[in-house]
């Protein structure tokens, strides 16, 4: 199984995307490129629906940190919604639960 971005809703100053599948060394670029493309037009808040994200590791986390750096300057934030336990645990371990909004 690979990765897909199944939904992108851009609205005012927030963009919501849903990531489905495994965000690993083979697939993280799909997300990076999509988010870079979104932020090219306008720096907005990013909300990521992780309901169907089954796997993420440091390659994926690296992408999210890079994106946060980009939008933080304009006081925007990244929210993580519906993440599974194992993914939440990874965010806790790496301290990302303190710099992302985990819902």
């Amino acid at each position, binding site marked *: 199984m690979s990765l897909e971005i199944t939904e992108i809703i851009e609205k005012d100053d927030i963009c919501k995307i849903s990531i489905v599948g495994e965000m690993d060394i083979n697939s993280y670029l799909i997300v990076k490129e999509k988010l870079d493309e979104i932020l090219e037009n306008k720096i907005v808040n990013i909300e990521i629906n992780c309901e169907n994200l089954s796997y993420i*590791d440091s390659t994926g986390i690296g992408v999210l940190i890079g994106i946060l750096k980009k939008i933080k300057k304009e006081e925007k934030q990244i929210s993580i919604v519906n993440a599974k336990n194992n993914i939440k645990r990874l965010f806790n371990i790496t301290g990302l639960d303190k710099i992302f909004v985990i819902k």
Partner: protein
Amino acid sequence: MNEKINLKLPCKPEFINVARMNISVIANNMKMDYEVIQDLKVAISEACNNVIIHSDSESHYEIDFIVKREKLVVEINDFGNGFDFGNYNEPDLENPKESGLGLFIIDSLMDEFEIETKNGNGTKIRMIKNV
């Protein structure tokens, strides 16, 4: 019980899911919990990612899965550059960076973690999860 499974994989990202699937079946056979299996998948992938990104190994790397009654030992061996572990710094979690999280994640998720590496002489990552 002390059984060894050995897997040789090409140093290419598209085969990392094979490593993940192996640890997943083996840990499942050992009746480990779902959440533990998820952690094992992340830990092994971090080690394999490093082989592919950093080791500059020529063709293949090897994974040993050693199944014991009370623990699963996983060793990831590459025959690449190695590195100077003396220069390794743990990530500063207050100031997150895009990279530098891999080994730290393995260490956090596993019960034991060891690294043997020398500049120019390959790397062996050894991780243990207790049942």
